[in-house]
């Protein structure tokens, strides 16, 4: 056995590149997958921590569906003997700030110990807050281990001042109290603690996207591993036959090879885990910024490594290697002792294999079509993506062979004909690498189209939504009135009023909108009754945002429940970037329903460039309460760019993995195909001409793959925009195409293929004639 193992392992000593390919392929696959998983795990840990602050994940709440709660309500409940504590949350300078009442807050995570000499006074006067890592406020923040990163806890009155509000978000109810809160404060109700953290719910789709990309990268990596294992097995078939012939049983041989694979896998898995850590550490700050900007989710930018993470990474590496090498091991176990020993990796070119691949590809694409037509939800969306990509990958070799067959009828001259025929014969040997390239290119086209469509639509939509030039928030309603009076006829003053309330049964926000041409002219409605704006301002109904309309299947003419009152849906508007439900009433109807709503915010439609400075000078408004349109747009676009930065990074990494796969396959096949090029050389073609034709062949195959990747990428973009995004975010974007981008990507693919083929071609060009002559002497 030991001798047999030595003979088997000697293969890797003679073919170090193959060993490198296998290890690097598996390490890349494991690394990208575990990196993404580490990011997701880190983010989820942060969410859970944030949700658990003050026990908010387990305590019942008292809410008022019709209006904001105030400290007066808190006082009323306390006087009635209800053990409640108030909470107000918001964001200040990027820090999530939680306002609490230190005397009634339940002891536990995030509640500071105020027994120090001056701590209580400083806390109550709003001079001191307690925060987790990275928390920063305009007041002193002392580090407290129990507080989540990017989060600070301060006295509720101080937080009201910081946020410029008099409301509180909710009252937490300590356990053991029965009864109806409406008997204390009319209109209030008990609400169970959220079954799933809000942040978990809101960010699920984001993490699912990351997971999908991690899986794609893993799959691309496995293509490399499969190719490397397949080649190593093919090349050792004569050795296997010899070992079997001298008495090694098929079972023992299979066990030895499985053991060998396991050793290589563990090495690759450890490298992959380290690589995954580096990927996660590099991408996590961007992800944290995205999640903070888009969802207000606090995520620690530093990475914590758990032992389970390493074990999971190694487990994935072993599972991946088993998946990639299983077929070869299975074939080996069933190999007859006298099976043909010719090492011919391209023997897979058999028409039957191509037919099977083609049939599998067609079946998967048919399944994708069915899922597209009848599937529902995010799960179906990702199943559709998987079927589409795998189906396209399986169809690639037969389509390439068909394209090369067509091309062979067009080309003239023996060398060109040989080159095309040779390319056709190389397809099976290169098919896995080309499949990986197809997937990477299609993902790039698809994601590029999605991001481009998103950016263009989002920018246009921002221009419509942010039609006013200035957005002002008064310190209180009196100041807001004073500002309106000061502005006079220098601007149209439009109040911005809203309340947090249930929108179609889920927590959301309800706005009151004044009648102004900027809304009537600039807001396109996706669906509307006749004369929606007239009817809105006549108080006959409400407008609903797209995500609520899609989620609840409520469209123009349907009835929607807004804070306990039924309204007719007059229209549906786009509301990109907002994960929550939202609705709009005419200002008159809103005022009547919510007379106590906060009225400090104003939008100013003006052409007066000096107004901003005048307001600043007159009222001393801080930057966060006097915001111009450009500032909001800049912030929104920043959030947008960050959102897709991680996706783009994974995209580039996936393309890199595919490029590596191509290089590894071409280099390995470069040695194996000497018997094919040596006769051509002997018949009078120079090594230079053959090397150049090898370069051309690789470029040709990459060009054909890139051409096939474009329609696959567009289908992918359609699935992302029309299925996955709708299910994940609740809005649907128009699909815009960018042929220039495809051309650029195709050129990159050609360059990558040419670079991948450069080293093998160079080696062929400079190869000693004696090596080529060796082919004729049967020295292979």
């Amino acid at each position, binding site marked *: 056995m030991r001798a047999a193992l030595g003979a088997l392992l000697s293969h890797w000593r003679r073919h170090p590149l193959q060993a490198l390919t296998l290890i690097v392929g598996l390490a890349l696959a494991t690394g990208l997958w575990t990196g993404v998983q580490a990011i997701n795990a880190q983010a989820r840990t942060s969410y859970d921590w944030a949700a658990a602050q003050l026990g908010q994940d387990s305590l019942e709440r008292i809410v008022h569906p019709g209006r904001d709660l105030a400290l007066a309500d808190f006082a009323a409940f306390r006087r009635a003997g209800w053990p409640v504590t108030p909470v107000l949350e918001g964001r200040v300078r990027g820090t999530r700030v939680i306002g609490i009442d230190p005397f009634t807050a339940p002891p536990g995570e995030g509640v500071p110990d105020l027994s120090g000499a001056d701590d209580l006074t400083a806390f109550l006067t709003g001079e001191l807050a307690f925060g987790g890592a990275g928390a920063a406020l305009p007041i002193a923040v002392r580090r407290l281990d129990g507080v989540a990163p990017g989060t600070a806890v301060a006295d509720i009155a101080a937080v009201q001042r910081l946020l410029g509000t008099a409301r509180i978000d909710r009252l937490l109810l300590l356990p053991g109290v029965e009864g109806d809160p409406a008997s204390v404060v009319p209109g209030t109700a008990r609400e169970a603690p959220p079954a799933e953290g809000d942040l978990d719910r809101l960010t699920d789709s984001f993490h699912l996207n990351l997971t999908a990309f991690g899986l794609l990268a893993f799959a691309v990596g496995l293509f490399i591993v499969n190719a490397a294992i397949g080649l190593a097995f093919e090349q050792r078939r004569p050795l296997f036959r010899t070992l079997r012939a001298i008495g090694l049983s098929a079972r023992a041989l299979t066990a030895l090879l499985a053991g060998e694979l396991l050793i290589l896998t563990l090495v690759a898995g450890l490298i992959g885990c380290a690589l995954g850590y580096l990927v996660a550490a590099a991408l996590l700050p961007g992800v944290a910024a995205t999640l903070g900007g888009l969802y207000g989710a606090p995520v620690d930018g530093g990475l914590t490594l758990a032992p389970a993470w390493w074990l999971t990474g190694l487990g994935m590496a072993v599972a991946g290697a088993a998946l990639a090498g299983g077929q070869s091991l299975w074939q080996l176990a069933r190999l007859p002792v006298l099976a043909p020993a010719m090492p011919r990796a391209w023997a897979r070119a058999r028409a039957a294999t191509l037919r099977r691949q083609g049939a599998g590809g067609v079946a998967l694409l048919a399944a994708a079509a069915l899922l597209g037509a009848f599937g529902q939800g995010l799960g179906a969306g990702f199943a559709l993506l998987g079927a589409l990509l795998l189906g396209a990958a399986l169809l690639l070799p037969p389509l390439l062979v068909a394209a090369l067959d067509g091309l062979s009828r067009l080309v003239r001259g023996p060398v060109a004909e040989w080159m095309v025929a040779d390319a056709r014969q190389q397809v099976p040997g290169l098919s896995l690498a080309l499949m990986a390239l197809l997937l990477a290119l299609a993902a790039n086209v698809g994601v590029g189209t999605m991001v481009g469509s998103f950016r263009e639509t989002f920018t246009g939509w921002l221009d419509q939504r942010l039609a006013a030039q200035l957005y002002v928030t008064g310190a209180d309603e009196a100041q807001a009135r004073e500002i309106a009076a000061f502005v006079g006829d220098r601007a149209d003053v439009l109040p911005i009023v809203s309340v947090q309330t249930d929108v179609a049964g889920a927590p959301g926000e309800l706005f009151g909108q004044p009648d102004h041409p900027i809304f009537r002219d600039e807001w396109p409605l996706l669906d509307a009754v006749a004369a929606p704006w007239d009817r809105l301002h006549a108080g006959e109904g409400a407008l609903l945002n797209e995500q609520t309309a899609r989620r609840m299947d409520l469209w123009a003419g349907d009835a929607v429940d807004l804070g306990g009152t039924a309204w007719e849906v007059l229209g549906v508007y786009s509301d990109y970037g907002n994960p929550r439900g939202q609705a709009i009433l005419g200002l008159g109807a809103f005022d009547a329903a919510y007379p106590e709503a906060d009225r400090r915010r104003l939008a100013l439609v003006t052409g007066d460039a000096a107004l901003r400075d005048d307001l600043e000078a007159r009222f001393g408004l801080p930057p966060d309460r006097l915001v111009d349109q450009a500032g909001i747009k800049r912030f929104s676009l920043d959030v947008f760019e960050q959102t897709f930065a991680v996706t783009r990074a994974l995209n580039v990494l996936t393309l890199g993995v595919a490029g590596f796969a191509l290089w590894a396959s071409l280099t390995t096949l470069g040695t194996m195909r000497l018997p094919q090029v040596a006769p051509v*050389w002997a018949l009078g073609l120079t090594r230079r001409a053959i090397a150049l034709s090898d370069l051309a062949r690789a470029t040709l195959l990459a060009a054909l793959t890139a051409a096939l990747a474009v329609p696959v990428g567009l289908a992918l973009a359609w699935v992302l925009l029309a299925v996955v995004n709708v299910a994940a975010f609740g809005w649907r974007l128009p699909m815009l195409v960018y042929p220039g981008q495809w051309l650029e990507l195709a050129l990159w693919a050609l360059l990558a293929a040419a670079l991948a083929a450069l080293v093998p071609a160079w080696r062929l060009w400079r190869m000693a004639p004696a090596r*080529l002559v060796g082919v*004729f002497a049967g020295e292979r």
Partner: protein
Amino acid sequence: MLRVRDLTKAFDTADGPLPVLRGVSLDLAPGETLALTGESGSGKSTLLYLVAGLDAPSSGTIEIGGRALSEMDDAARARLRRAEVGLVFQQFNLIPSLDVAANLAFHARLKGGTPDVAPMAERLGLAEHLSRYPEQLSGGQQQRVAVGRTLIARPRLILADEPTGNLDEATGDAVLDLLREAAEGTGAALMMVTHSERLAGRLSRRLHLRGGVLA
């Protein structure tokens, strides 16, 4: 047609240069057929490959049609092989990506010709296999394709390295007949490496290599 003088060849090994040919000289006239025999490792195949310009000698000269290979660069030697030399190998060495018809025509087309392969295919008994690929043929059929490829190209010098080594006696005889006919019919010179005394006896001349020297 072929003039070889004082040819030596040594291969670099870990233990220093290993001499394989030690001063070989020979001439071959048009239409002449020469059998080169010798033990394994005597340098027969090496001599053949040097003559074909596939490898460079350590010293000595080779002239084909009056042109010295040593004065040619890689591209010129490739052009010479294309135009003047036909090679037949023991391992057949057909081009696996091309079908039989394309393999038969390949060398002649490289020379710039537009050959009609049908008569040769008929003569070689390959007419029904023209659209097949090499891996679908038997060893004898593959060698007939290799010989046919050379005959269609009509080279002035045919170099054959154990062309019958992988064939049974009857098929080997048939292949040798073809090569002899080609030499006699076109005036080409034929140099064939073989282990077989019987086949060597069927050619017009015979040389024996022993330890890198003509005996």
